[in-house]
């Protein structure tokens, strides 16, 4: 086990664009660190650099206190689980698990012991004689984990290991991964697209965009206090509502909403509020006019899409293909999450109550959060 450090690491595949731009990151011994970010932001590149499959253009990578820039993957003593598992198709599960140990000249009884142990943890005992082609997706995923486990490496690198599984299996494997990490405490870097994995699995998450770190912190901290517009828009599902507002004369004004403001006058800001912080307005308190457009009852909650007077702000984390649900001139689309009892009907006109403490403010020019 060991800590992993990346210091000012830049990776360019071509002259003009950097897949990773000055990445500095420290993963503590035994920590479970999550890398999240949109497609193409450099997550896989970061893992491959740590694994030694790619050389950094500049910067240093250290594992267990040793600079490994010039060390081959073989001698870095890390294990990696690839997104598509990369199991050896011509070997049985047993040989897949044992291969790394055999190549490292581990004594036979020791190989046997570790394979038994890993297959017991992962429930692979009955599958040891099969080939990867004879396994289900979930079983392959477990074999890929097993191949990493038997090695007892300094660190695990996992590249979206659950992305090929169906929703139910994902929930199950997520819990299993957490259990394995609690049990073995091996330093882990885990790449994912998935909000839930990011929020639940990691000790800390690193939000990346365009090869740069946007924010590093505990999951709850990143969720509660996003440092910039990108993180605000990226973390959370459905994403945070972001609207153009004006701070002046002790209040933040946005449409017909008026929130108290004690900071200096700033011309224009982005005002953000999470869908679950919006409620049908009771009496008193600040509120926002809202027209219901689409209602999605999910059982334990109701997702309500609609519009309010105002202008939406783009966070930069939107999916490219996102189609605005409503795009009329002066109205902005917003989303709220209600309790099932509050389910509205499409076309309803209502007011949404907002708790002033739960409102996020961002500078429209620097795109950074404004403290209050």
């Amino acid at each position, binding site marked *: 086990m060991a800590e992993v450090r990346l210091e000012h690491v830049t990776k360019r595949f071509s002259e003009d664009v950097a897949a990773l731009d000055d990445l500095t990151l420290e993963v503590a011994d035994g920590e479970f660190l999550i890398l999240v970010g949109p497609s193409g932001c450099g997550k896989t590149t970061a893992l491959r650099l740590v694994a030694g499959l790619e050389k950094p253009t500049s910067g240093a990578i250290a594992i267990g206190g040793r600079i490994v820039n010039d060390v081959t993957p073989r001698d870095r003593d890390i294990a*990696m689980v*690839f997104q598509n598992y990369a199991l050896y198709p011509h070997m049985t599960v047993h040989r897949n698990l044992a291969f790394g140990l055999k190549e490292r000249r581990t004594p036979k009884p020791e190989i046997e012991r570790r394979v038994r142990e890993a297959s017991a943890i992962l429930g692979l005992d009955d599958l040891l004689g099969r080939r990867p082609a004879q396994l289900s997706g979930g079983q392959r995923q477990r074999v890929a984990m097993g191949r990493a486990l038997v090695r007892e490496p300094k660190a695990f690198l996992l590249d979206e290991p659950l992305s090929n599984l169906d929703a139910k299996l994902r929930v199950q494997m997520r819990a299993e991964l957490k259990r394995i990490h609690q049990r073995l405490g091996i330093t882990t870097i885990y790449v994912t697209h998935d909000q839930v994995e990011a929020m639940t699995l990691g000790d800390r998450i690193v939000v990346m965009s365009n090869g740069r770190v946007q924010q590093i912190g505990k999951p709850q901290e990143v969720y509660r206090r996003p440092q910039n517009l990108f993180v605000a828009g990226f973390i959370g599902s459905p994403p945070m509502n972001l609207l153009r507002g004006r701070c002046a004369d002790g209040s933040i004004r946005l449409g017909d909403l008026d929130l108290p403001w004690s900071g200096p006058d700033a011309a224009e800001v982005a005002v953000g509020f999470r869908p679950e912080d919006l409620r049908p307005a009771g009496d008193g308190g600040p509120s926002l006019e809202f027209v219901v457009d689409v209602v999605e009852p999910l059982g334990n909650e109701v997702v309500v899409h609609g519009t309010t007077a105002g202008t939406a702000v783009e966070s930069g984390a939107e999916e490219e293909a996102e189609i605005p649900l409503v795009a009329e001139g002066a109205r902005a689309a917003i989303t709220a999450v209600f309790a099932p009892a509050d389910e509205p009907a499409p076309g309803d006109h209502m007011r949404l109550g907002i708790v002033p403490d739960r409102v996020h403010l961002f500078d429209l020019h620097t795109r950074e959060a404004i403290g209050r």
Partner: protein
Amino acid sequence: MAVRGANIRRAVTSDHVVGWAFASPAVLLIVVFGLIPIVWSALLSFQKTNLLSPAHWVGLANYRALPKDPLFEQSMVHSAIYTVLFVPFSVAGGLLTAVALNRPLRGIRIYRTAVFVPVVVSTIATVIIFLWVFDPNFGLANWLLGKVGLGPFAFFTSSNGALYSIVAMTVWGWIGFNVIVYLAALQGIPRELVEAAEIDGAGALGIFRNVTLPLLGPVTLFLVVWSSINALQLFDEVYLATNGGPGTATYVPVFYLYKLAFQGGIAGYAAAIAYVLFAVILVLTIVQLMVGKRMVHYAP
């Protein structure tokens, strides 16, 4: 009448008829140049004929005569030696060359093209080149071997060396084909598998032995079967380079039966040789496929 008309129309426009219509040119070619000669030579092998005067049936006499024919035995032995050398050298050589060329070197396309050129060069040109290179007195080969203190060798004109010279020449001419097939297969090996093996701690040799080679299994089996068939049917190079000589040193079955049928006028006996050779090829191929099936892993 109306009913019959409809039936005919349905029959003519059905997929069946249309399908055969599209296939008919190919079927015709296969029947005329494949099926008819196969059946005809089968009949010939039971006859005594010189293809010109009327034939008469001799039963199994042609086949019975074969084991007592020393030239036939010699041809088969030469063919066996040739195949046992040609197949491993061209397949293993093709593999090693492909691995060497499967990397991002500067000008790699030029090397790849160069390796493939001999395949598209006609046999006659290949033979002319090798008659030069292997010329006992002025050839490049003896000149080079002389530099390291070997030779001179007589090559095509030596009764001990002629067959091996043909092996060398045909390997040179064929290897490019195997290289191209292996290169294509190497590109098809998922990069992550090699990377996974690297991370698992395998060295270059370990990766080659445990990942690359097994994944090339199906292609290797194909190339072994394919080059074995070609090796057993060797003819052009012998005909052009040595004409079976010196003496009968490079007689192989197809060359021998050609001599018999078209120069000796003993077509029935020649057809029997052709059928024995066919049986040998068939059995060898079946054995190779059966052994291969156990050794080769096919990716899902």
